């Protein structure tokens, strides 16, 4: 089942970051909208960013275009969740 609500999208984004970056559950659970991601998490290198985006595509049933990928969408947990919700909840 592809997630259908805002809370489910946020839970999916959290799970993807935890799974791809290998974060422990407590650390991922503590992420809030203002938690900085790209540049702040050493685990988030270019391969990991690609992994996060592809996992989000798979789990949310969305397609992320190359020109949509920029520093802003990856800046914080809130920004990434907003981007994913915008794509997934139409």
């Amino acid at each position, binding site marked *: *089942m*592809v997630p259908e609500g805002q809370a489910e999208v946020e839970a*999916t984004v959290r*799970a*993807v970051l*935890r*799974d*791809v*970056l*290998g974060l422990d559950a407590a650390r991922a659970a503590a992420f809030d909208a203002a938690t900085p991601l790209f540049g702040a998490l050493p*685990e988030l*290198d*270019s*391969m*990991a*960013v*690609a*992994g996060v*985006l*592809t*996992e989000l595509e*798979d*789990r949310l*049933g969305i397609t992320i275009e*190359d020109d949509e*990928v920029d520093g802003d969408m990856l800046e914080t947990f809130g920004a990434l969740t907003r981007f994913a919700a915008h794509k997934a909840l139409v």
Partner: protein
Amino acid sequence: MIERYDWAGGREAMLRFGPADGPLVLFAMPLFEEANRTRAFVVSMLRALAGQGIASLLPDLPGTGESLTELEEVSASDWTEAFSAASGSRPCHVAALRGGCLIAGNVPALSRWYFAPATGETVVRDLIRARQIADREEGGRFDADEADRDGPPIELAGNRVPRPLLRALREAEPDEMPPCRIVRLDGDPHTADRHVPGTPLWRRSEPDNDPALAALLAEDLAAWIERCAS
């Protein structure tokens, strides 16, 4: 036990697990960097399978692992031919993880068992996307259509990958010729015969293992092989 197998293009290494007789599984690793990330996990799974009395072979593909062949000289058909040759003439069941499912179709197997099968399009897009993001960080721009043009191998996630190999992989789909069983992770919304709890270890930048998931998958595969035999 480390052994060698011969195929038309040379000789490659492979690991053998389990008893000398009984059912045999030929296992296809994920492709490129994902193979390094999941090797310990796959070995755990095949050891658990050996504990259930099932033997297995884990071949290195040409251009990977200890291979004397350079990856930049490899074609997609080299991979399918080498993988097929690894079992010799002994009937076997094929099992594969992620992109390994793309090269497992050439074997006249008794059955197929795939965990988290990936399409070629996904595998290639992942590699290209990582390159695009890395280049952008350095102020450059990598054109995703580069693989469609003729030219030297493309540097992707630490590998120099030949363009014809990328193009062939991009078109490849897992061969789900029956009998075929598909197992996926809980978070994966694609259809499967079974979804299991766990995390995608092939995404981790540091190789990791999950012995509980390895044991669960070994049990699932052993039960599947027993069902196919009856």
